[in-house]
């Protein structure tokens, strides 16, 4: 962990890092945008996952549902990474030096991979795929996103 502490110190010393810390509206604004992007991911994922699980719009083509919401998830993910980066640069020790943050990143990576894996067979055409995605994985994903939100809020309470 020695090199990460060197990196944290260097980042903390940069002009952009102190500008983020010293401008009092930046962090709350960026956090609010972060939460808005979370709602987009959660809304899109929830409807798609519940469709896969068979609870929402079971009469609607699975492919249409997955294709409609996946681009919104990518856009929201881009906003989340950008706003998250601002928070990392502003307070590198609070974030990078926090174990819960790294757990959160691992869960996000797992969630993204699992989402792509689950949706891939559904993206080729409007026709329903031959093989249905596993319903259980849709539930795993919903729980995973809840865990991501919990760990995100928990960063503020751990070090």
């Amino acid at each position, binding site marked *: 962990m020695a090199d990460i502490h060197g990196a944290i110190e260097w980042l903390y010393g940069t002009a952009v890092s102190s500008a983020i810390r010293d401008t009092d509206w930046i962090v709350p604004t960026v*956090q609010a945008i972060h939460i*808005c992007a979370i*709602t987009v991911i959660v809304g899109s994922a929830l*409807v798609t996952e519940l469709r896969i699980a068979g609870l929402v*719009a079971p009469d609607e083509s699975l492919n249409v549902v997955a294709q409609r919401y996946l681009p919104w998830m990518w856009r929201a993910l881009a906003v989340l990474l950008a706003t998250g980066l601002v928070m990392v640069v502003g307070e590198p020790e609070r974030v990078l030096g926090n174990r819960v943050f790294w757990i959160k990143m691992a869960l996000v990576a797992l969630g993204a991979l699992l989402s792509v894996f689950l949706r891939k067979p559904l993206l080729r055409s409007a026709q329903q795929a031959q093989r249905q995605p596993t319903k259980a994985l849709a539930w795993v994903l919903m729980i995973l996103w*809840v865990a991501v939100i919990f760990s995100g809020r*928990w960063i503020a309470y751990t070090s």
Partner: protein
Amino acid sequence: MSLDATLDSLSNTTLALAISQGALSFPMLECIHVVAISVVVGTIAIVDLRLLGYRSHRRGVCQLIRDVLPYTWAAFAVAALAGSLLFISSASRYAHNAQFQLKLVLIAAAAINMAFFHLTIYRRVAQWDDLLPPPLQARIAGATSLCLWIAVIFLGRWVGFTLQ
């Protein structure tokens, strides 16, 4: 009894003390609040964007609303409950916070906007269910709702930075 005395006695109830003194985890309630808000605003945004003319997973507005609204309401109940518990943990501090007051006003405005939409243009939804773009009044209702909920999220986050 004055309002402040009432708020203070609220914060001295066994339940409120359990939250402020850590027996019932404040951070855990915050996490539940954020998860519930994401579902509330995430599902509302899908409907609002459809009212603005962005396609959803349904062709018609009516079916879309029927699909997602039960989840919106269930999540809203959870968000309101967790929010109330966070509030009573230090009731008078929240009640005196301008951002918190404005947040409640905007939630009420969002409710009025929704009620107005349901009582007017939505009554005639059969005439414009599949129509893209939807009629102007529906687009205005969608845009208003979207702006209000985004403002509610901003104010909610701001409370955490301004609470005295």
